[in-house]
């Protein structure tokens, strides 16, 4: 019974959370308040864990919440509930798109969507950069402009970019190097 409930609650989150993993959060608070399956502290834990493990945030959140609620099977059920609406909706859109992809109107729509999509991704990149390269908290405490930039992070970013352009290896190589650098430099 609890599995059916889990499936239903996370199906709802998957259906109504539009626009990425963090959009799943309000639904988690709602589920927590309504069912008491997991606490607000659990949600805080799971945000920290989702952000320091690989994989889509929303999926990480659903798995964690499900496991905390009813163990391994719960994690599976919650995750399936979450991704089910996506799969159904996207399969339908993809089928329609395949049929009409050469239609003039679809081409016209995409001529607007592509630059917009690039813009949205750029904004997301700026948000990541803000967290990764700047010390907003330290700066607001001291007010010194030199405290705003985390120098080591910026140097690391420049080095990674240079390496990326020069060697063109798989992204994971740079991620591994950056993780090691983070540990060594105590970032």
């Amino acid at each position: 019974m609890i599995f059916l409930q889990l499936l239903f609650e996370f199906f709802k989150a998957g259906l109504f959370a539009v626009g990425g993993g963090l959009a799943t959060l309000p639904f988690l608070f709602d589920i927590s308040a309504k069912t008491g399956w997991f606490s607000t502290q659990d949600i805080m834990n799971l945000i920290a864990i989702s952000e320091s493990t690989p994989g889509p945030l929303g999926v990480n959140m659903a798995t964690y919440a499900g496991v905390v609620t009813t163990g391994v099977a719960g994690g599976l059920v919650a995750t399936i509930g979450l991704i089910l609406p996506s799969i159904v909706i996207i399969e339908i859109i993809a089928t329609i798109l395949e049929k009409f992809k050469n239609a003039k109107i679809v081409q016209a729509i995409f001529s607007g969507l592509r630059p917009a999509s690039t813009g949205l991704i750029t904004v997301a990149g700026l948000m990541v950069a803000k967290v990764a390269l700047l010390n907003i908290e330290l700066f607001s405490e001291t007010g010194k402009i030199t405290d705003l930039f985390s120098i080591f992070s910026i140097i690391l970013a420049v080095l990674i970019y240079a390496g990326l352009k020069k060697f063109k290896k798989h992204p994971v190589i740079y991620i591994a190097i950056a993780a090691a650098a983070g540990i060594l430099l105590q970032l």
Partner: protein
Amino acid sequence: MKDYLDLFLIFARIGGLTFGGGYAMLPMLKKEVVENRGWATEEELLDYYAIGQCTPGIIAVNTATFIGYKTKGILGGIVATLGVVAPSVVIITLIALFLQNFADITIVKHAFAGISVCVCVLIFDAILSLGKKSLKNIFSWVVFSLVIAISLVFDISPIFVVILAGIAGVIYTRIKKTKEVK
């Protein structure tokens, strides 16, 4: 059968190596799906991201379903999606069962601070490459700049941004056509 296994494994690899949500997946997708496999073009990735923004669900899952569908039909969409979530499910289950304070471990914190610097560089590199494909005329530059300005200034849902951009695309194409006819 081998094709489906291939699809599952590639997406499992992408899911297992992506730190920080749908956008961070972009550099991996570009490498594995566009450059190594040729399953989709960069333009198509942009389309999928745009649609994934305004349809329900997680962007990473939506994009995986799209590419899977394009490669191997409906079953392909399901297989790619299961692939992209599989590593998360395994890793998070283990952490939730045994290591609830995982994120508080000092070494994990430092490693992740380094990783987020790298993710930031990878995303910007991907943006530069996508920009070359999608920003080819004044209209696209205007849309691109407006989207960034609007998103930074207002707390507006990407759904509206995407819908407005689609409408702008239709209007622009109409105007261009009438001009050509004249």
